[in-house]
């Protein structure tokens, strides 16, 4: 019942997108809300959401307060690399978003990480990329200098 009320409220707002991601640095970015709310519209919105920011994370909870150990691991890894400016969408706030992103990515679990609109994977993949050095390289391609590179330079 609550989700119906929330969906209705969402539909009454106007604009292209209803989802307000939390920036990892804590600022809430409020996008104008959507007029129509069909599943197809959500898929279209997701297509825009994943491209709007270089790093996009669909997670449980927020970067300040993750609600899942795997989501928290993603937040911690990004934090270690000094990636603070990314869009984080809390799927616990919206069941349509939660299922919608799984359909969009064709990936059954949360968290989900996107770099430049491309699906990277979940917590396991991000962790392995961090461990084998690939994450530093991928961030570089996004124009993001990993903080770990600076830390390495300082220690030399």
């Amino acid at each position: 019942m609550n989700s119906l009320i929330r969906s209705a409220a969402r539909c009454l707002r106007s604009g292209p997108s209803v989802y307000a991601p939390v920036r990892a640095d804590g600022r809430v970015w409020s996008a104008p809300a959507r007029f129509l709310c069909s599943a197809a519209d959500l898929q279209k919105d997701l297509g825009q959401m994943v491209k709007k920011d270089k790093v996009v994370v669909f997670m449980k909870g927020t970067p300040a307060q993750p609600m899942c150990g795997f989501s928290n691991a993603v937040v911690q890894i990004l934090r270690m690399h000094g990636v603070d400016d990314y869009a984080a969408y809390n799927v616990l706030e919206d069941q349509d978003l939660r299922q919608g992103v799984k359909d969009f990515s064709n990936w059954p679990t949360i968290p989900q990480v996107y770099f430049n609109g491309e699906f990277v994977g979940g917590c396991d993949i991000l962790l392995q990329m961090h461990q084998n050095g690939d994450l530093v390289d991928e961030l570089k391609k996004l124009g993001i200098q990993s903080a770990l590179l600076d830390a390495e330079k300082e220690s030399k």
Partner: protein
Amino acid sequence: MLPGILRCIRPVSTRLTLTRPLAHFTPQMAPDPSRPVEKAIRTKLTNSLKPDHLEVHNESHMHAVPPGSESHFRVLVVSSQFEGLKLIQRHRLVNEALKEELSSCVHALAIQAKTPEQWGSNPSLAKSPPCMGGSRGDHTVEEKLKAGRE
């Protein structure tokens, strides 16, 4: 070298995690003797990926779900079918094999997908991060637990 990841991945609110009442679930409870979901996972991964080595761990007891649940799993699959495939492609193969379980009763699936060579040079099982209690009161998880019981 990069710092040890397990040391660095600490939940921000470690204190909260420790005081959260997860402890009433006994960590070493007796597993459900039939373990149908675990068996299904093992069978499907064996049939589809012909692994040289396979580990299927039920980690439900580490999460905010009732004792005996089969909702949270960690799998380690070592298969030559992963040769030449990127991580995401390997994980998609595993997801595909377990499509039915993932859409019904399995809520979380941690995956390690290695080639025999990679396993040979680093034969270690990764550890899951500490639970932060997100499954409690989660309607989606409750539905999956119900599906698992039926």
